[in-house]
């Protein structure tokens, strides 16, 4: 029996030839998401060489540098398009797209809905911190109405995107939401997402106290985690709440689980048919 701890597992997956320290602020939730992802991959026993982490641009995008997988740090918003090319080219690979909320929902919104519609076999992780972290705290499509940001000093007027509803509507195969406060649940969700065929999307709510908290009512990382603890509730319980009690609560858990085969599976099955026909001399 091995008695290695969570940290030791993670150390096996970090890049030792990379110059640490990392770029994240102390107390940032992004590191927790990365830890969860690593433990899920470890628990599923997926070899490092079979994993490709494709990241967008933002604090979340930087995570790819630190992990010892095949890693591609792409352009802002475009992670899913690179991921699609990789998955179609080599369907054996586990392709994971790591994106920020600005990354995935704003500039990359079109790629997100089409990856979901196409049902490409990629696991998408949206690290939603409700803000543009890396560029210094401007509004993102996930910034809650009424919040203050660098580009909304008078309070956000736009409505905030509901990632889950967006992905569901676009046809994603598997859609779940977790938070970095509820780590075990998030880990379970991630394992499921990695195992599901087709397009899976996990939204991880991760606090950015530096850019979001500071300007709103959460002064410290602790305040932000307390907020996650008090707002997030399992979707099953959320559904039982009366309408008037739902406003300040955020459902977490699994929202969609359709189990349809991925686009690449359908494509290669058809191709095999063509090749069989051709071998028989047909056209």
């Amino acid at each position, binding site marked *: 029996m091995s008695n290695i701890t969570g940290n030791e597992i993670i150390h096996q997956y970090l890049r030792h030839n990379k110059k640490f320290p990392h770029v994240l602020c102390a107390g940032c939730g992004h590191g927790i998401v990365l830890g969860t992802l690593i433990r899920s991959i470890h628990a599923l026993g997926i070899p490092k060489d079979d994993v490709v982490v494709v990241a967008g641009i933002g604090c979340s995008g930087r995570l790819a540098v630190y992990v010892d997988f095949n890693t*591609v740090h792409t352009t802002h918003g475009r992670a899913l398009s690179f991921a*699609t090319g*990789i998955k*179609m080219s080599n369907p054996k690979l586990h392709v994971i797209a790591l994106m920020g909320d600005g990354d995935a929902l704003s500039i990359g919104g079109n790629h997100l809905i*089409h990856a979901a519609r196409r049902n490409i076999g990629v696991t998408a992780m949206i690290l939603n911190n409700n803000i543009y972290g890396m560029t210094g705290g401007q509004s993102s499509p996930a910034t809650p109405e009424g919040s203050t940001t660098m580009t909304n000093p008078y309070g956000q007027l736009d409505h905030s995107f509901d990632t889950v509803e967006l992905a569901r509507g676009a046809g994603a195969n598997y859609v779940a939401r977790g938070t970095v406060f509820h780590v075990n649940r998030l880990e379970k969700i991630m394992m499921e997402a990695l195992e599901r065929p087709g397009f899976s999307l996990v939204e991880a709510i991760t606090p950015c106290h530096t850019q979001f908290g500071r300007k709103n009512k959460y002064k410290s990382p602790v305040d932000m985690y307390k907020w996650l603890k008090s707002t997030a509730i399992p979707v099953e319980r959320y559904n039982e709440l009366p309408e008037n009690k739902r406003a300040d609560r955020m459902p977490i858990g699994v929202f969609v689980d359709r189990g349809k085969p991925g686009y690449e599976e359908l494509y290669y099955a058809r*191709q095999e048919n063509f090749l069989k026909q051709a071998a028989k001399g047909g056209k």
Partner: protein
Amino acid sequence: MPRPKKRTEIFALGNEAVVEGALLAGCTFFGGYPITPSSEIMEIMATRLPRMEDGVFMQMEDEIASMGAVIGASLTGRKAMTATSGPGFSLMQENLGYAVMAETPMVLVNVMRGGPSTGLPTSPAQGDVQQARWGTHGDHPIIVLSASNVQECLDMTITAFNMAEKYRTPVILLLDEVTSHTREKIELPNEGEYEVFSRTVPSMPPEWYKPYEETVRGVPPMPPIGSGYRFHVTGLTHDRNGFPTQRPEEVVELMDRIHRKIDQFFYDIQLVEEIMTEDCDVCVIAYGSVARSAELAVQQARSNGVKAGLLKLMTLFPYPRRQTEKILSHAKTLVVPEMNMGQMSREVKRVNMGHAAVRTINRVDGQIVTPSEILKVIMQG
């Protein structure tokens, strides 16, 4: 002795010849978004690739996604391409820069149409010459090729793939509507009759591999993603290990190498066809369909007793300086006809440095440059 196999002749559209060339070069991935006048390339790929072993065709949601998918495919070791036209080319620029920085081989065909903006969708133009050179941000070298007839569409597509693989870089093939939509008889080369170059893969064990190491040619070996060589690919300025860096000496090393790997192989990259240039007094410098008009004009000038010649550019960038300089030793006039306001004549003037008179012929009305227009200018001497 086995008799040499007879070449297959087909009657093909320029765009069709591009597909034939790509498949002969080993292309197995196409990602694109429809746009006139390049669409046939995508449509024919859509029919061919899914029936081929390992062939992948994807219609993406836009040109940005097309470039992303093509780069992703190339990272897995495939030869990949996309095709577009003016407005789509503009959308591809950001990821084109990424391909330059991450040293990802790929071929981008841009069938030019009249612009700016959605401009003249079905009319011939050559307005994207400088966009091809400088469209993406930052300082970078780029290889831009062109073709002036249907056979060349096939040949230059193979060349584009070979250069992309040899130098680990995106290669742009700039065509114009006339060439793309001309139908002519062409010959398909037999296997073994043309060079097919594939990127060098590392031979060292994975632990020793440094993805962006200095090499003699300046081109590091490139393993397919998922083959046991785990490394980081990024559009950020990176060190030899591929990790982001801002240290001046590492930044300079990378930028120098990216330039050097193209610079030191000018002779391999700068392709031209020289027609009656040895003794010419007047030399036309042209590319694309305009080079065809120019060839006729040069022949007519010769029969009128004027020593005219044609330097046909098959490589637009890096600009074929050496071949131009050779002509400058005797030619008194250079004539540069093009379907734009003077995008290539700038390059010619830069190399000419006042040696010869440079006369330009420019059309941006969606009409081709005719042989008689060029002849008139040649005859002025």
